[in-house]
């Protein structure tokens, strides 16, 4: 039976699946129970699984991460919601110094399988700190896995697959996509690996890499360019750390051209990271310099100026075309 779902529902179904199949899993976060989360992503789960498995916690992000570690060492699988990416920062000490280091520090005796979820990205006209795109910070943390879905089905499958990986994982939910994209959904059509890119479209002219919310724009640019007889190989990065270089390199080897688009600021970013790796491994195979279309280094501005910060299809396409010429 198929069902039309949006991204938020895909995540909700994924969480439901984990809670129903793993009795040692639990959700915790601010306003996720009675209220179903500020984006209603966890709607109905507390009613279904009760207050000991879906916790409306005190308001403290460092607490969430720290107690998550304690639980994880005792075989509980904590799924933590940070209400917004801009409010994870109090938890960075726990994430950087403990959660991602526990396995290494104890030579594997202890580990910290847990999932941290958060909405991220701009474009929803929300107040300051609610539209952060600081994935580059998290993708620079050793020991952390960072993944992000770009379709409702992928949201479900990635969650389910992530739950089987015994590492701490940050799961980034593109806020602007929560309700904007609907898709037919058949559970368990294809089990996903969490650390592999997905080649959505094959093409020979250039490789276009994006992730999260920008996949929307990337898909439209791909379609538009096809009408101009330019064939894009479109890659959803999916895993921001670790990065699936074998897939990317074999694509760029074929196309000889690579464009990367990202919402996060350019300096010290994932786009730059990928570009630098491609230069190292494919220098002589590149037909032209790599194009990066990135956020500005002022960071996501107050909502009035988001429209200038976030690149739309037109502006991305113009940049790609002038780069090709």
């Amino acid at each position: 039976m198929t069902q039309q779902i949006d991204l938020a529902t895909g995540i909700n179904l994924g969480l439901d699946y984990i809670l129903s199949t793993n009795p040692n899993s639990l959700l915790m976060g601010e306003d996720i129970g009675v209220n179903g989360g500020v984006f209603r992503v966890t709607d109905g789960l507390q009613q279904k699984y009760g207050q000991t498995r879906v916790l409306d916690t005190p308001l403290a992000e460092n607490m969430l991460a720290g107690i998550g570690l304690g639980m994880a060492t005792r075989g509980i699988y904590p799924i933590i919601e940070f209400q917004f990416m801009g409010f994870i920062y109090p938890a960075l000490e726990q994430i950087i110094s403990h959660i991602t280091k526990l396995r290494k520090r104890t030579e594997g005796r202890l580990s910290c399988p847990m999932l941290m979820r958060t909405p991220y990205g701009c474009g929803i006209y929300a107040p300051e700190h609610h539209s952060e795109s600081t994935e580059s910070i998290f993708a620079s943390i050793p020991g952390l896995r960072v993944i992000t879905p770009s379709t409702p089905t992928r949201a479900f499958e990635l969650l389910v697959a992530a739950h089987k990986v015994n590492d701490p994982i940050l799961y980034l939910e593109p806020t602007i996509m929560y309700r904007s994209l609907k898709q037919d959904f058949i559970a368990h059509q294809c089990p996903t690996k969490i650390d592999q890119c997905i080649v959505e479209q094959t093409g020979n002219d250039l490789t276009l890499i994006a992730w999260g919310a920008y996949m929307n724009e990337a898909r439209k640019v791909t379609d538009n360019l096809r009408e101009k007889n330019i064939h894009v190989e479109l890659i959803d990065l999916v895993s921001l750390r670790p990065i699936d270089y074998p897939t990317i390199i074999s694509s760029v080897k074929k196309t000889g051209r690579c464009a990367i688009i990202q919402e996060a600021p350019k300096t010290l970013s994932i786009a730059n990271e990928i570009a630098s790796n491609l230069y190292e491994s494919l220098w002589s195979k590149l037909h032209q310099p790599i194009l990066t279309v990135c956020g500005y280094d002022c960071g996501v501005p107050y909502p009035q100026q988001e429209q200038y910060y976030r690149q739309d299809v037109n502006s991305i396409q113009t940049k790609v075309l002038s780069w090709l010429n």
Partner: protein
Amino acid sequence: MKANKLTEQLQFKALLPLYQYMLKSRLLENRMVTLQRHGLLATYAGASGQEALYVAIGYLLKKEDVHVPYYRDQPTMLMRGYKPIDLIRYWSGSEAGNTIPYKDLPICVPIATQCLHAAGVAYAQKFKQTEQITLVTLGDGATSKGDFYEAINFASLYELPIVFVINDNGWAISTPLDKQTKECDLTKKAYSVGMKHLTVDGTDMNECIATLTNAIEFARSNQPVLIHAKTVRLCDHTTADDAKRYKSKILINDEKQQDPIKKLKKTLVEFYNWQEKDDFALINKIQKELDKDIDTFKKDHVQTPETMFEHCYENMPESLKQQQSELNHDTTN
């Protein structure tokens, strides 16, 4: 609902401006919500039900004192140099709303972080031997964060001229206080750091003035104080929230009985011959002022793209200048 005859320190002449500020904030709030529904504001967090507390704070702080707000302090801010248009601009998503003549800190969204800023400000005040104090506000939910404990501990240890005011409106979005902490008497949080503490009905202007006067006096002699003020939140958490999902109809109705504006009006009517026609005239006058601000805002609220790069540093680095000119090039083509 009880009406209170006013203490001597707060006679009618002083009281009327306070009532005006409460009304002004409430009427501005109603207009803000409408603006938001029309897509002109991003999100908006109101202060209705909490005006007595915030107006008392605005009334008692001296201009040179420092107010460290969170995001629900509109009534105080209106008394400390913010004009309605500044607040409209802020919530419409523009930093222009943060530029005011006072030296207060701006609105603070990351919960409880402002408590530490305030303790730092108070340390500086003491260090520089000023006569000033700092007053910081926070929500009940904010008491769960380490920042709050760290700040009261530091303030108490160094005997700083500071007042912490917890605006306990009972809820942190959908989370009631008894799911936030086992100890709902928030003055108890001061025990562990050896700090003075007071409780107040934050919907009662008279009590707010008396308690805050006390606390501010202590603070001026370097005795920090924690105030637990009980208020009600008569609005949704923000315009993005729907309180009906977690508050019962009965509770919503009970909370309305605590409306501080209605309470103060009752006092004015019963003891000071305030009449419906006076009220009506006052409301009209305020609405006309608000009309003007909203008109100005509607005419000129769009920021130009390149300003996004300004003020990141004292002097803009070359790399940022280059991005700024790329953007200019993009938007003019």
